[in-house]
Each structure stands twice: as structure tokens, then as C-alpha cells.
């Protein structure tokens, strides 16, 4: 099948408006006869479910957690971008569009990104109307902050809990519709397959996680807002339950999977402390506004710090290597995430890592504390030369800005970041790749839609900070509810979809067989045993830096591990009860397939772009020597993979990316 992005004709700034004027609508009386399934209740799924119900559709919403409010969007810290230009600093729809395409290293679809920038301002209006308590200035108006890779202040925030506040906003909109009976909510339900009837998505099979009951649910369209697949690495900043299963089942039913190798490895996370580690914790990008990143210049100091004979704060300035400031004088500590992560890895690989595992660098607030302290002393007319006083005043300022993050760090690491630099290291955080969708956010399966992090569309090869929340809500509140009407307008006479068809029966049977296999298999290793091993392969060979040999090895190692998994996995208990190991087994089975496709995609893309860094594609000389080298001539396309059985058999389809409104350039942060 040839890929048709269905991008409307006309100038980029008019596309969305003209398109909305022309698409087919469903009248309110007919909407009452149409059912829509929404899987996932994060920012994308939650906002879509609420809006679709408000429009009049009958919505069935599903989440695996015990309440829709617990979806992992809740953990987003820093903020949400919107081209409001409240600060009058030159922001505009075009600039947000431009920054997003450039930040994504020119691997996203222009028309989708422009639309995202266009609806961004409305998100803020909407959320304020819903009672989202954004940070405000003393005059009562909304406050903004800056994020990496941009030159304006367009990020709205609610302290370090912006994701929580936005998700609770979407949750409240859902609650209103649940109360009215327009959304039927299924908590603790996991989607285990998509059901296609006559080539169209017409329902899903779910497992009730409490009782183990397998259920059939039908609808006229199915929407997946099921998040990213970062947990293929085992360790990531994702929640424990975050998984690829819904997206992967959709892929197996015909939805192409796009750019699986585009993964964001976030530079500032708390380092791994040992083999017991179950997940990693992010320290917001906003910390790089005031924190300076360094490692010692000399190996003897690295060793002394590791041995505990030298305190990091006692190391003289001239013996420190502020490597981001050294390599990127223009952007310094605020280079984009992909660049900062690779630079940390480069220093640690060279042996300069500062903790026992050798995988940590310092994020130091000492100079910010001094700077703020002196400023405060000056403002208050106190002695600017009183070191103790200046430090105390400075620490208060830093506490006001980042208090919750510092507290989180102290609880985990048991060190006081006000007095000794934080230790940080990159960790898997977000996946830009995902299910391929057209301009309508429909996948290659008619009637199956994909929104939020689960799709591939807006962030190219690298996402800018504070843009994930923007995309989730844009898709759910403002894009999908329009575009889905165009499809559903053909279904007004269809009537209810029966779950008694052979398609539902077959899908249910397959699901049951797999579950039965797991609970009866006489294996010898737990699910986590396999998940951890998969994670190690992914991190070591398909992680921050990739090469042909490593990727080739990863592909065969993952395949072997998958075969071993199907022989030796051990799942206690039965299907007919709450059984977390059984739920995990199904998820890890899918990760073991996705992981191989991921490596295959990385091997195919013989260029470096955004989060995908190939050691064989770097600038060889000049000012940019050693930096990532894109290959626009051969790789300015979306790699959309079609399922054909084994991941190794997947067939590549290319959507050529056209750049009419932005000139392709080398990203330079020097």
C-alpha cells in the first residue's frame, strides 16, 4: 500500500482552516448512534474521550490503571508550550512551528507541526477555563519560562507539576461526561487486540485485570492514546506499566510502525544505583537554566572523588571541565537534549564519570547560588561579601525555583544538592517514533486512529522540552474530534457493531491461547529476567550511540532472547485472577518483537539525526567536527514498517518529507 499523508493543498497557514471548512460532519442526532473506543487516558486519550463525548458520541474509555487520573502524563514536570506571545518577545505560530521542525532535526511532517503550533494557544485558554491553576505573576496574569533550544519564553507551567495539573484538567472533563453517562469508563482493563471487520477497525479485546475476564468491545472507530514504548529499555523514566502492547497489536493488524529508532534520551536523570533498580527518575530540563554541567579535567581527581578522598565542591575551578560550555559556547548548558546526552556519554566513556559505576556527571548549582545570593544581598542592602549570608540567600532563591526537584533528589540519592553538586546521567525518556498516521491522525487501518506519544507525527527525530503536553492535548481536544467526523459520517446508517462475528471470535481465541500458554508453560525464569536482558541489549547496542556491528548483533541477540522467552518464561498463578506477572508477560513478549524492529530501523537509517546517532555518520572536519551528520538526500523520509510475521520480515515504506516552508540546515549550537 502506498502511503498517502492526505495533507491538504494550499498555503501552510491556511491548510487546517480550509480543511476544517470542507470535511464532512455528523449531525448531533446521528452522533448518538455512533460508538467510539478510546484506549488510554493520558493527555491525548483523556482529552479525546472528553471532547468526543461532549460532541455527542458514545465513548468507551479504557485504562490499565485503577483510575484514568494515573496515566503517566501525570509525571511531566516542566511545562507546556504555546505561541501566545504574552511576553511580547517575538513569538508566533510560525516561530513555534520553525523551532519544532528544527528541534526535530527536519524529520517531521511540516503540515502536522504547523497545525500543532496553530492550535497551541487555544490549549491554554481551554485549560484555564477548566480551572487548571497555572503559575501567575503578581498582576494576576499567566507566567512563562524558557526551555532548551528556543529563543523565546513560551512555556506555561504549574511549578514542577505541569503534567499533573493538565492531566487532572482532562480527567475532570472526562468526569463530567462519565457523570452524564456519555463516557463509559473501564478501569483496570488492558487492551490485548484490535478487531477488524471488513478491513475496518471495529473493536478491541480486553482483559479485566482484576478478574481475568476476556471481553469483546465494539465501536465504529478505535482511538489509541496509549503512550510511548521507552520501557523496551527496561530502565526508563516511564511508569512501570507503560507498554507498547496496544500499539504493537495494532501494528500486527496492519498499522504501519514509523521511525521506531527515534528515542529521546534525556540528559538529566538520576543515575542508576545498582542491579535492583526498577526505574529512573527525571530531573527537569528547567534545572539546566541554573545548573552547570562538569566533570574533572584530570583522571587523578576523578579517582579521588570516587574514592571519597576529594569532595567535588573542593575541586578548584581550573581543574573542572565544563564540557558543554567548552564545546558549545553559544548555547552552553542549554543545548538540546540529544546533544547534551551524547556529550555526557562521551566524557563518561573516556573514563571521567564521577560515581562508582562511572556513569554520572555533575550538575552544579554553586555558581547560581552565589549569583542569586549576591543579587538578594544587594536588593536587601546587606553585606555582599559575607559568604555565609550570600550562600544562605542564594539557596533560598534556588529552593523557591526548584524545591520539589531538590527534595526528590535528596530522597533518592541521600545527598543534599544545595551543598554538593547533583550527579546525573542520561536516561530513556520519550519515543518520537510510533504508529504512522496521516493528517487525520488515522493509521493505515481504516477507522483506527492514533494520538499523542503513541503516534509518530510531530516531533521528528528529537522532541523539544514542553512539547509533549502540547501535542497530547492538541490531538485530543482540537484535532481528532474534527478529523474523526469525516470518517464517521459514512457510518451513520451502520447501526451497532455486533461482537458476535467470526472476527471477534477469532481475535478472542488468539488472546486466550496466548494467556493459557503463559500460565501453563513450565518455564524457569521470571518475566523480569527477560525484560532486564532485553533492556541491556537495547541500552548497550541501540542506545545513545549506534553502529553497524552493534545493531547487527542486537538484532540476532534479541531474536535469540525472544526464542528463549517463549520456551523458558515462567508465570505463576492463573488467568482468572489479578495476576501482574501475566500482564507483564504479554507486554514483554511485545517488547521483544518491537526491540528487533527498532534495531532494524536504526540499521536502515544510515545517517545521524536527532536522537538517532550513527557513529558512521559524523562531520569529519571543520567547526562541526565530530557532530551528528544528517543525510537529507537519502534519508529525508519517514520509515514506516509493515508487519509481515517476524520483525526481520517487516517491509519498509517511505513517506518522503517535503520542506516548502522551512529551509533544511545543519543544526548548529556552537
Amino acid at each position, binding site marked *: 500500500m502506498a502511503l498517502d499523508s492526505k495533507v491538504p493543498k494550499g498555503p501552510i497557514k491556511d491548510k487546517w482552516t480550509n480543511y476544517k471548512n470542507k470535511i464532512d460532519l455528523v449531525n448531533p442526532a446521528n452522533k448518538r448512534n455512533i460508538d467510539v473506543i478510546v484506549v488510554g487516558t493520558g493527555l491525548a486519550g483523556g482529552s479525546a474521550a472528553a471532547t468526543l463525548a461532549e460532541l455527542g458520541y458514545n465513548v468507551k474509555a479504557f485504562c490499565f490503571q485503577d483510575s484514568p487520573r494515573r496515566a503517566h502524563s*501525570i509525571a511531566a514536570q516542566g511545562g507546556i508550550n504555546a505561541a501566545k506571545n504574552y511576553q511580547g518577545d517575538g513569538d508566533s505560530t510560525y516561530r513555534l512551528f520553525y523551532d519544532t521542525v528544527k528541534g526535530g532535526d527536519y524529520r517531521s511532517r511540516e503540515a502536522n507541526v504547523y497545525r500543532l503550533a496553530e492550535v497551541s494557544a487555544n490549549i491554554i*485558554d481551554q485549560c484555564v477555563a477548566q480551572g487548571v491553576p497555572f503559575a501567575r505573576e503578581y498582576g494576576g496574569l499567566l507566567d512563562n519560562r524558557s526551555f532548551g533550544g528556543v529563543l523565546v519564553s513560551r512555556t506555561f507551567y504549574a511549578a514542577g507539576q505541569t503534567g499533573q495539573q493538565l492531566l487532572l484538567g482532562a480527567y475532570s*472533563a472526562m468526569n463530567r461526561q462519565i457523570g452524564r453517562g456519555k463516557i463509559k469508563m473501564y478501569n483496570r482493563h488492558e487492551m490485548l487486540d484490535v478487531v477488524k471487520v471488513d478491513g475496518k477497525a471495529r473493536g478491541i479485546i480486553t482483559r479485566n485485570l482484576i478478574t481475568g475476564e476476556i471481553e469483546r468491545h465494539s465501536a465504529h472507530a478505535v482511538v489509541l492514546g496509549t503512550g510511548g514504548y521507552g520501557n523496551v529499555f527496561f530502565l526508563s523514566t516511564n511508569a512501570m506499566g507503560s507498554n507498547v502492547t496496544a500499539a504493537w497489536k495494532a501494528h500486527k493488524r496492519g498499522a504501519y510502525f514509523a521511525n521506531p529508532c527515534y528515542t529521546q534520551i534525556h540528559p538529566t536523570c538520576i543515575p542508576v544505583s545498582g542491579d535492583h533498580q526498577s526505574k529512573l527518575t527525571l530531573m527537569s530540563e528547567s534545572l539546566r537554566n541554573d545548573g552547570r554541567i562538569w566533570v574533572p579535567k584530570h583522571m587523578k581527581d576523578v579517582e579521588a572523588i570516587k574514592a571519597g578522598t576529594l569532595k567535588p565542591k573542593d575541586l578548584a575551578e581550573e581543574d573542572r571541565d565544563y564540557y558543554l560550555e567548552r564545546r558549545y559556547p553559544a548555547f552552553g548548558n542549554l543545548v538540546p537534549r540529544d546533544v547534551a546526552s551524547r556529550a555526557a556519554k562521551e566524557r563518561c566513556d573516556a573514563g571521567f564519570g564521577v560515581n562508582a559505576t562511572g556513569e554520572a556527571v555533575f550538575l552544579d548549582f554553586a555558581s547560581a547560588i552565589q549569583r542569586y545570593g549576591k543579587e538578594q544581598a544587594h536588593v536587601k542592602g546587606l553585606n555582599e561579601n559575607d559568604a555565609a549570608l550570600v550562600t544562605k540567600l542564594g539557596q533560598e532563591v534556588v529552593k523557591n525555583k526548584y524545591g520539589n526537584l531538590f527534595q526528590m533528589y535528596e*530522597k533518592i540519592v541521600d545527598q543534599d544538592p544545595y551543598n554538593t553538586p547533583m550527579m546525573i546521567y542520561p536516561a530513556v525518556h520519550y519515543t518520537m517514533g510510533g504508529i504512522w498516521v496521516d493528517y487525520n491522525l488515522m493509521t493505515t487501518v481504516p477507522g483506527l486512529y492514533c494520538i499523542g506519544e503513541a503516534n509518530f507525527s510531530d516531533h521528528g527525530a528529537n522532541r523539544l522540552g514542553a512539547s509533549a503536553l502540547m501535542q497530547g492535548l492538541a490531538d485530543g481536544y482540537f484535532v481528532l474530534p474534527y478529523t474523526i467526523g469525516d470518517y464517521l459520517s459514512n457510518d451513520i446508517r451502520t447501526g451497532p457493531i455486533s461482537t458476535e462475528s467470526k472476527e471477534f471470535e477469532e481475535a478472542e481465541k488468539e488472546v486466550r491461547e496466548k494467556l493459557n500458554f503463559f500460565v501453563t508453560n513450565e518455564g524457569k525464569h521470571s518475566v523480569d529476567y527477560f525484560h532486564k536482558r532485553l533492556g541491556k541489549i537495547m541500552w548497550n547496542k541501540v542506545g545513545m550511540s549506534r553502529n553497524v556491528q552493534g545493531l547487527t548483533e542486537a538484532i540476532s541477540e534479541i531474536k535469540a532472547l525472544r526464542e528463549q522467552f517463549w520456551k523458558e518464561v515462567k508465570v505463576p498463578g492463573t488467568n482468572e485472577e489479578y495476576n501482574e506477572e501475566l500482564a507483564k508477560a504479554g507486554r514483554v513478549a511485545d517488547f521483544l518483537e518491537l526491540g528487533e524492529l527498532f534495531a532494524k530501523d536504526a540499521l536502515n537509517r544510515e545517517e545521524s539525526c536527532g536522537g538517532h546517532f550513527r557513529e558512521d555518520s559524523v562531520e569529519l572536519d571543520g567547526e562541526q567536527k565530530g557532530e551528528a551528520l544528517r543525510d537529507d538526500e537519502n534519508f529525508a523520509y519517514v520509515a514506516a514498517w509493515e508487519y509481515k510475521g517476524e520483525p526481520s520480515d517487516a517491509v519498509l515504506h517511505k513517506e518522503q518529507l517535503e520542506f516548502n516552508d522551512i529551509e533544511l540546515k545543519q543544526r548548529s549550537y556552537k
Partner: protein
Amino acid sequence: MMNLTLKIWRQKNASDKGSMVDYKVSDISPDMSFLEMLDVLNEQLINNNEEPVAFDHDCREGICGMCSLYINGEAHGPDRGVTTCQLHMRMFKDGDTITIEPFRATAFPVVKDLIVDRSSFDRIQHAGGFISVNTSGNTIDANAIPVNKHDADKAFEAATCIGCGACVASCKNSSAMLFVGAKVSQFALLPQGKVEATDRVLNMVKQMDEEGFGNCTNTGACEVECPKGISLENIARMNREYLAASLKG
């Protein structure tokens, strides 16, 4: 490294009677989180062909509100201002015996082992935890109504509730007033929420009572055990809102 004795509530399902069972774990690192210690126990149980202990957890960074253990008689354990997933083993010492139970309340029936059903919290939110505005995007500009920073900050503090239920588990009356008060306060403090404040507080309180939560007798245990430090002020504000609404009604 520590060796510990765990006394854990095991209950097969909602209708099972349930009982405390003893387990031993060894070589526990002080850097582990409490849930990572339970991961070690579960791995051990699976390898011994025993059934792992079921407990709720998801984000493991203190924000989703899913984890819900009652540890040594305290919701989320002995540390302050943290959820169970943020509690670290350095709070315990070698040789300790640790008692682990589910959050107990009539309105939170046990599902299995340490997992409880908190859907009563959702139903209270369905009754009124929202502002009746459509999500069509045709609202007024976000800066059209200035909001006093003090009120906005107070609304935010109330809104940081994660809905874990520690307040209910800590209260001798199993009262949910801190949880409900936080939501009522968030909206009552904002101009956008004032419009339907009367109905909201009446409906939410009615649903809270129907769910079987107890009343507040001002002991303040909820505030002490709340991992997010939600203030008792919110209960007082809800009571004022409720009284005003009842007089209007």
C-alpha cells in the same frame, strides 16, 4: 546490606478472609526503594514457585498516586512527605521486622493482598469535580480574567493532591474530607470555578457520604500522613462552602 522480616497481609481476593504471613528477605541495599525491596521478595517467591505479593504501583516517582501501602502502622511508611515508592530502605535497619498492610477503609475494599479498590474516589469526582465548560476551544482568552496570585497559588497547592487515599487510611473515621476538600477548594478559589460552587460542594459531599466515608473529627492525622502536604485549611474551606451552599439551597 540488610536482612529483614516482613509481615505481609495476604488475601486471595475480595471474598477471602485474609491473614498476615511472614517472609524473610536478605541482602537489601539501603539505596533500594521500598517497592524495589518488594520486587526482590517477589522474584524470590516466583523462583520458589510461590505466588508473588500483589501491590499497586506505577510511576514510582511519587506523582501517580497508585502505590498505597500501610507500613508499620503508617500510610506510606515512616518518612514524611513521600509516597511508598519514594520511601527508601535507608529508613530501616538490619534485623527490622516490617509490617505491611493495605489501606483499610470500608469505602476501599481489598481486591487482593495489598491492593484496594479506590473507585469511590472517582465517583466523588464524577459527582462534581469539574467545571462545566466544553472543550471545544471557543473559550475566552486565558488572560481575560486576572487571578490574584495568592488565590492561584492556594488553588494549585490544593490541586497537587494525588488521590492516593493516605488521608482516608490514616483517619480513625476513614474520612475523605481532605481529598474532597482539596478539590472543592481548588475550584472555589478560582473565578472560573465559583460559578457552580454551590452545586459542586453539595453533590460531592453527598456522594462522599453515600460511599461510606466517615466524618471529620479534626484529629489532623490526614495532614500529617499526606505525601503532598495538603493542608487542613482545605477541610475548613469546604465546610464553609458547604454551609453557605446549604443556606442558599
